[in-house]
């Protein structure tokens, strides 16, 4: 029997390998529609203060139903382990989410992760019962260390967050793929659909896209493009590509040539 190609994170099975961020959209309606079109069943969300002076502001939960789609609380904007831990503990309190995305930033300009604070936080959160998906640099050694302290998914950047620069270091992603059985998800830097397909062809288990959809001229069309790119890239990866050949090999037999 054919083995089903499942996408499992922290013992939970998901149908789409595309994870979508909910930031940077014009409004909640646009965000909700783009998510629907993308087919994603995990969305990242951020934790922020409630606006107590303007309560008419719409709530994310009113537009994206957490019962129908998995919320992945993140620690966007956190620069220390303490901030990240505080944020995720609060996130868990809102709705009991244990699957979380940890990102501890180290530099405001590049938004590169602070590897040491990230490692420290991963270990603490895992001990507290969280299932931690970790944003990290595309550094195989750090990926291994994160795995050793209990990360449930490795989420290396392809390029800086929101840059749209695409995959800058294919080899590192391949090496990380080679060394881990954990879900490997490209977290940042995707600019267009072909970047997502390439990530999948490199053997990644999933791709996280936010800016490339939200800031595309046509977000809904791009959401659909990303959906198909991830499906195509995955199928291409598991189908076993041909060996690259320096010279040509005719597709048509010469038998019966006139």
């Amino acid at each position, binding site marked *: 029997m054919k083995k089903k190609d499942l996408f499992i994170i922290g013992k939970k099975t998901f149908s789409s390998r595309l994870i979508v961020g909910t930031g*940077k959209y014009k409004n909640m309606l646009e965000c909700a529609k783009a998510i629907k079109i993308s087919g994603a069943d995990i969305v990242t969300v951020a*934790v922020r203060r409630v606006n107590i002076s303007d309560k008419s502001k719409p709530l994310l939960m009113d537009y994206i139903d957490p019962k129908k789609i998995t919320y992945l609380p993140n620690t966007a904007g956190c620069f220390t382990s303490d901030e990240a831990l505080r944020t995720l503990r609060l996130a868990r309190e809102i709705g009991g989410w244990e699957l979380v995305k940890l990102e501890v930033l180290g530099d405001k300009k590049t938004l590169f992760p602070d590897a040491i604070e990230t490692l420290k936080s991963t270990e603490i959160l895992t001990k507290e019962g969280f299932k931690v998906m970790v944003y990290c640099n595309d550094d195989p050694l750090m990926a291994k260390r994160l795995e050793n302290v209990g990360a449930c998914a490795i989420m290396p950047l392809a390029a800086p967050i929101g840059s749209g620069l695409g995959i800058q270091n294919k080899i590192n992603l391949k090496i990380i793929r080679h060394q881990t059985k954990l879900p490997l998800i490209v977290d940042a830097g995707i600019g267009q659909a072909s970047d997502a397909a390439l990530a999948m062809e490199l053997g990644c288990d999933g791709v996280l896209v936010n800016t490339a959809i939200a800031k595309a001229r046509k977000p809904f069309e791009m959401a659909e493009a990303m959906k198909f790119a991830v499906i195509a890239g995955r199928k291409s990866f598991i189908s076993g590509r041909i060996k690259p050949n320096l010279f040509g090999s005719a597709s048509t037999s010469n038998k019966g040539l006139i």
Partner: protein
Amino acid sequence: MRKKNKIKIIVNGKQMTVNPKYSLKNLIEKLKLPIKKIAIELNRQIVDRKRISKIILKSGDKIEIVNFIGGG
């Protein structure tokens, strides 16, 4: 003699005054916040939402109320 024993608290960084014996539940209700969609911290400690009616606010209390917003 003070005219009123108003209690000064800080909610999401903003100063507020409430009456004595004001509970956290009173505050959440006054702010018309959906309790199931928020999380509350009182002086850096996460508050169990089931207990908010039992928590009486004290002068100088710092309260953080958070929810989910769009993010990547």
